[in-house]
């Protein structure tokens, strides 16, 4: 698909570009009073008007090129930058995508009214062409805005996922040289990796000889989760720490058996309390080197 303007369209494109250039001042003044610009540029009105100018000028460039449907058209780049920042700030203010979209549509109406005023000069046919171009141009502008909104939301999701990862995997020092990880929520590959790394780092830091992996808060255990747990246990063992998995609920024990997963090489306990008792008991029997205060 090419965006080159057929001859019949050229007049409409030019009319829109001309309109935007001639009425730059009027459009900018109207836009600056709209909630979209008003809410973002709160300090001075001049700032808002300046921003309007830059958007209008860029729109005129797009209209002139005739590629009003093409997001890659030369003029859209600065618009994208300007509007992305603005919509991002509207999104942070708590507006939904459709609310922001409505605010952007309001921009079109200002230009629309001014086109009405020029009908006499342009002639009926050219005005019609100009209307089609104007509508298409602002349609594309809305796409730009929605894209910016989606990107902003995507970034929020990514940030929150990162926060969740950091929050959800604390390693607790329970006793001298004894650490525990209370796992809560579903374990996927990314989280398991973080859990493993955090636990192993903690083993080094605390010179831990026993690590308790408590899965009380893990809703389901499938073969993938079990595999991750086994890998963590194997890595900890290589580093000289023994792992015990605790908090295995009856349902999970049954699932593990039904899946045919072999956890026989791993010490397991029903509750964290049992695991703690086991860890401390092992120490008293002297099977592990006596340590610190024990």
């Amino acid at each position: 698909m090419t965006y080159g303007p057929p001859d019949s369209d050229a007049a409409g494109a030019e009319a829109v570009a001309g309109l935007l250039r001639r009425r730059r001042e009027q459009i900018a003044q109207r836009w600056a009073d709209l909630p979209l610009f008003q809410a973002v540029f709160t300090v001075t009105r001049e700032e808002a008007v300046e921003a309007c100018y830059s958007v209008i000028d860029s729109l005129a460039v797009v209209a002139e090129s005739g590629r009003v449907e093409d997001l890659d058209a030369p003029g859209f780049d600065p618009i994208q930058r300007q509007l992305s920042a603005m919509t991002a700030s509207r999104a942070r203010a708590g507006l939904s995508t459709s609310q922001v979209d409505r605010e952007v549509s309001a921009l079109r109406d200002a230009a629309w009214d001014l086109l009405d005023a020029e009908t006499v000069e342009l002639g009926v046919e050219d005005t019609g062409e100009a209307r089609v171009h104007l509508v298409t141009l602002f349609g594309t502008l809305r796409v730009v805005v929605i894209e910016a909104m989606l990107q902003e939301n995507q970034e929020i999701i990514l940030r929150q996922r990162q926060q969740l990862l950091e929050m959800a995997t604390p390693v607790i020092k329970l006793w001298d040289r004894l650490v525990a990880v209370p796992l809560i929520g579903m374990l996927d590959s990314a989280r398991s990796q973080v859990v493993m790394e955090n636990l192993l780092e903690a083993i080094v830091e605390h010179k831990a000889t026993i690590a308790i992996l408590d899965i009380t808060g893990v809703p389901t255990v499938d073969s993938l989760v079990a595999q991750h747990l086994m890998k963590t246990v194997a890595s900890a063992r290589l580093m000289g720490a023994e792992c015990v998995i605790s908090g295995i609920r009856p349902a999970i024990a049954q699932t593990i058996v039904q899946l045919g997963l072999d956890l026989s090489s791993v010490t397991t306990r029903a509750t964290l309390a049992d695991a703690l008792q086991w860890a401390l008991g092992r120490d008293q029997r002297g099977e592990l080197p006596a340590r610190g205060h024990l």
Partner: protein
Amino acid sequence: MPGASSIPVLDFGGLLLVSIQGELPDDAAVSLQEDITDAVVRTGSRGVIIDISSLDMVDSFLARVLAEIAASSRLLAARTVLVGMRPAVAITLVELGLSLPGMDTARTITDAAADFGVTIADTVQEERNTT
């Protein structure tokens, strides 16, 4: 004969202590294996402690050599304990499927020595804890 590996095998009160520093080329790893086996026979030691806390990376070859050291020492009635493996090394080995099942491990040399019934004085540990 002190081998070509240039890694000293220290006789530490009946235990053999080996600390691998820096990168270990393949031929040096093989010489180390010979050195350790020789030393076990010469000293009649019952235990070998190998410290790898300064290694950033253990490849499959070195992992195999370590497993072979453990296996051959066991034939000579000496147990091998691997000490101080870093998290990244442990993760890599497990991902490669090299979890060294027959190998004993310990976090610190003190722990490994205690495994053999040798107590390293508490003062040493306290000193380390305070630094």
